[in-house]
């Protein structure tokens, strides 16, 4: 009997203190919403209405009407509760005021949508991501097309509606903003995102048969006619850093292919054109073409028609520095300088290189260059990486060739396994053909890598760089009599679409968001993709450019 008492005592003393444990655990039956997303995504524009909508993203188990009456909602950003309804609309500017956001930074921001039980206060939260864009924003496009004997600038807006991308067209935005037409037929358009001294989205420079127009991408207002350049400007390109605050370098050429430079100060507060052209070497030069480059301070390829050679503009860092075995270590404020370089083969390897690639430092007479593009960084982590370039050219007999060559950081053309010189796999082409490559700096994770896309009449085809430059069909324009006059990837929007302009004034946006599960690398290109949007601009499309002010995003192409 005593034993039983002892055991009872032991049990009592050990358990009683744990019995009433309600201060730590308070069991309430939960009935959580069933979410069908991991985050709600919104995109708003200033000056428009922001719509917050949570109803499509969750359901209740059981009687949903009953459950809905038992809860209330809160939309929060930081400590601020800016909405208490399930779905609601609010002018974007009012929303920004409420949450105290003054800077439109195009960055993703996070808030919480809370479902709160009225009786218990139990809260179920879902994250929402939002991005606030300016009225004209990254991922939108502008197009130039013929308008009689003048030029029309149109704007294509990209919006996300119910997680679908929807495009809409506004024509003649330059005329609306400035009350005048762009005089002369369109010749081309250059985007300068680095012109942040003019606006956050930079500028477009439009070349016509009559004049040069520089336009602020934030408003489509005319900035001027590049009057500060010391020559009649016939072409332009810029190099700049998107992430560091080093001023943009602008290069323009005159009718003789002479290159003039404007260096902006570190924060682009000012800068002016030099009055004399850049000097290269005793041979002189005549730049007639700027090739496809990436964004950032990277090499800008050029074609020197006078000496039939590949040359490039390179930039380098300077400033107070100390020597080290790994090169100079900068100890103070740094800035960017630039120069024109004519690469030649590394001493002693000229013959070996000439066996593998075209002699791009001294091409034969009659060579006609169709395209020069950055291809990729070639190499491996142990030996380092060098720039691999693609050049497509016609020889004196009109046969088209494709060559790839490699340049190291000292400006030497070097030997390597990736070099090639072969007849163009898609047959012979003319100067009318267009070419784009998705630059692939480090051989992995880049979308649309290893595709060399080209146009041939009303057709767009591609070469598979990863598979011996195999030629593949891709797109045929709906109208057999039409011709491709422009094409470019939506690089900002993760290469999810291909924008194509035509001779007859059509602009097609083709879907290219295909998963990686196909056989041909990252985002394969399957034939006959769906047309996401089609616009009729009424006259030959000459160029289109994606707006971009994403200064934090690394390396994209400048189509």
């Amino acid at each position: 009997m005593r034993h039983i008492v002892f055991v009872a005592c032991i049990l009592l003393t050990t358990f009683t203190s744990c019995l009433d444990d309600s201060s730590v655990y308070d069991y309430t039956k939960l009935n959580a919403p069933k979410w069908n997303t991991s985050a709600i995504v919104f995109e708003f524009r200033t000056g428009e209405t922001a719509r917050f909508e949570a109803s499509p993203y969750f359901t209740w188990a059981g009687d949903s009407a009953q459950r809905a009456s038992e809860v209330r909602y809160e939309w929060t950003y930081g400590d601020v509760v800016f909405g208490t309804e399930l779905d609601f609309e609010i002018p974007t500017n009012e929303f920004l005021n409420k949450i105290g956001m003054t800077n439109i930074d195009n960055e993703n921001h996070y808030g919480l949508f809370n479902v709160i039980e009225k009786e218990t206060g139990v809260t179920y939260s879902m994250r929402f991501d939002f991005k606030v864009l300016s009225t004209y924003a990254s991922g939108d496009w502008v197009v130039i097309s013929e308008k009689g004997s003048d030029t029309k600038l149109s704007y294509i807006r990209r919006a996300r509606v119910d997680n679908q991308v929807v495009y809409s067209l506004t024509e003649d935005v330059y005329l609306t903003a400035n009350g005048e037409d762009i005089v002369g037929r369109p010749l081309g358009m250059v985007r300068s995102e680095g012109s942040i001294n003019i606006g956050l989205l930079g500028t477009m420079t439009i070349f016509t048969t009559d004049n040069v127009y520089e336009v602020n991408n934030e408003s489509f207002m005319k900035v001027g006619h590049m009057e500060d350049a010391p020559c009649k400007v016939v072409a332009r390109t810029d190099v700049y850093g998107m992430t560091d605050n080093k001023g943009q370098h602008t290069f323009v050429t005159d009718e003789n292919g002479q290159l003039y430079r404007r260096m902006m100060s570190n924060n682009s507060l000012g800068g002016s054109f030099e009055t004399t052209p850049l000097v290269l070497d005793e041979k002189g030069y005549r730049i007639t073409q700027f090739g496809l480059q990436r964004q950032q301070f990277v090499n800008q390829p050029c074609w020197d028609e006078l000496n039939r050679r590949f040359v490039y503009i390179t930039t380098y860092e300077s400033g107070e520095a100390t020597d080290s075995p790994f090169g100079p270590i900068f100890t103070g404020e740094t800035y960017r300088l630039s120069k024109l370089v004519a690469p030649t083969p590394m001493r002693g390897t000229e013959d070996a290189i000439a066996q593998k690639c075209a002699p791009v430092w001294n091409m034969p007479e009659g060579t006609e260059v169709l395209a020069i593009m950055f291809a990729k960084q070639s190499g491996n982590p142990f030996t380092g990486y060098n720039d691999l370039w693609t050049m497509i050219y016609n020889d004196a007999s009109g046969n088209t060739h494709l060559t790839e060559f490699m340049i190291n950081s000292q400006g030497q053309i070097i030997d390597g396994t990736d070099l090639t010189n072969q007849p163009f796999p898609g047959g012979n082409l003319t100067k009318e053909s267009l070419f784009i490559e998705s630059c692939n700096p480090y051989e992995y994770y880049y979308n649309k890598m290893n595709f060399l896309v080209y146009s041939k009449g009303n057709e767009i085809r591609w070469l598979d760089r990863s598979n011996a430059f195999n030629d593949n069909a891709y797109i045929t324009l709906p109208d057999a009599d039409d011709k491709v006059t422009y094409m470019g990837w939506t690089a900002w929007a993760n290469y999810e679409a291909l924008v194509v302009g035509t001779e007859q004034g059509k602009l097609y946006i083709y879907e290219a968001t295909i998963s990686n599960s196909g056989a041909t690398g990252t985002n394969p290109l399957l034939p006959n993709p769906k047309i996401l949007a089609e616009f009729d601009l009424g006259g030959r499309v000459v160029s289109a450019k994606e707006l971009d002010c994403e200064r934090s995003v690394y390396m994209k192409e400048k189509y």
Partner: protein
Amino acid sequence: MRKKIFLPFVLGIVFGIGCSEEDIKVFHGERQVFFENFYMNALSPGTEEADTTRTSFFLVGENENEMRVELVVLLSGDVPEQDLTFGLRAVPEGTTAEAEEYALDDHYVFHARPVTENMEDLRDTIEVTLKRSARLEELAEKGLQLEVELVPSEDVGLGQFERRRAVIVWTNVLAQPDWWDYEVTYMLLGEYSYDKYRLFLEVVPEAADIDETMISERPSQVISMVSEFRQWLIDHLDDPENGALYQSILDSLV
């Protein structure tokens, strides 16, 4: 037999304690007050640098003869249940101002407030009164200096050594702002001058918002403010009184 009873009791107590609940206190210990800013460089291994509070009578308007400058004080230790008082005294060796050029209150109060979630420190603001004096004009950008030291009380002791004092410097002019660096000088506004900066702020009030971030992220905004200033100068060159000054400022803009 006793042992048999004793053991379960001990066990019971041990288990019982194991299940009791005690909050971890974020703010706990002897109460100490100190300034947010360091008046001297932090002693090793600290890396914080001395920070002086600077202000100017330029900012308060011509008719004001006094201005209040705010100093942030922090409290360590137990959360106060009632307001805490402490004192402030001027440190003669760090002070160039005369006694009539400033005023210290008899005592200062650290207000008791409820602690909210996510609160990282306990802080309050105290104010020191500065008085306009004739010699401020001639001292120009050098200005006057006041070094104050916290005085402990029964309520509260003193905290970190390097943060027991605060240095205040005030002038009658507006000093060259940090963002007016060599780039702004050579690319936009030219050499700094007091007249130029004052007029720039008067003509373009938003220029008060210019800082390093705006210059690096939105240079176009800064450039357009300077353009507005330039246009205003051009429009007022015929001013009978200040026309010549406006002309010289205009000429000095890049």
